[in-house]
């Protein structure tokens, strides 16, 4: 079963049009939730790590938040260079496990 679900699959925004991407997870006792940005043909680029419900992290136009069941990536006044696929990943609580389980991503297109 899917443990990490991202929505929407794709999102088109006009430059300056703020929006949010969602990542919901079904595991309990989450060790950590990670947001990455992936450009076509490239590796995931680290954005944020969140560990506990209520935590928020911010970087430029991006802000990530975490609740007990989901995380949001808020994009304020996006620019065309923010166009990319945004990946959410969770680190499960089992033993010493450090593997990341990824969602399918949200493909964001910001139009000028």
């Amino acid at each position, binding site marked *: 079963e899917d443990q990490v679900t991202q929505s929407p699959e794709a999102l088109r925004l006009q430059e300056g049009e703020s929006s949010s991407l969602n990542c919901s997870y079904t595991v309990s006792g989450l060790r950590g939730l990670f947001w990455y940005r992936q450009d076509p043909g490239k590796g*995931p680029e680290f954005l944020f790590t969140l560990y506990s419900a209520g935590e928020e992290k911010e970087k430029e136009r991006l802000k990530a938040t975490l609740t007990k069941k989901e995380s949001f990536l808020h994009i304020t006044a996006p620019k065309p260079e923010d166009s990319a696929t945004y990946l959410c990943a969770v680190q499960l609580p089992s033993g010493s496990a450090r593997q990341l389980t990824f969602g399918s991503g949200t493909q964001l297109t910001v139009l000028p």
Partner: protein
Amino acid sequence: EPEVTQTPSHQVTQMGQEVILRCVPISNHLYFYWYRQILGQKVEFLVSFYNNEISEKSEIFDDQFSVERPDGSNFTLKIRSTKLEDSAMYFCASSAGADTQYFGPGTRLTVL
């Protein structure tokens, strides 16, 4: 800023051939990982490596796969007898501890 590097960027091989993908993790990191991403699909965990041994592996990481840290800087993934379904982007990642993993740019493996 330190980064993970991978070589080659693109590898083309014939089915049944052996390939070795190479990675240089960030220098002070202790945990190393391989992930793969089949075109249009999620990023999937293959294996993690710590203290010169495999700490976790997924169902994908069968006897055809092996990893090695041959010296103090390189981390390799070997596929002994490639199959068509091994065609994918392979990403190396490293982390200092049990948290944020930093990914390399990937090696695109094409099996003909």
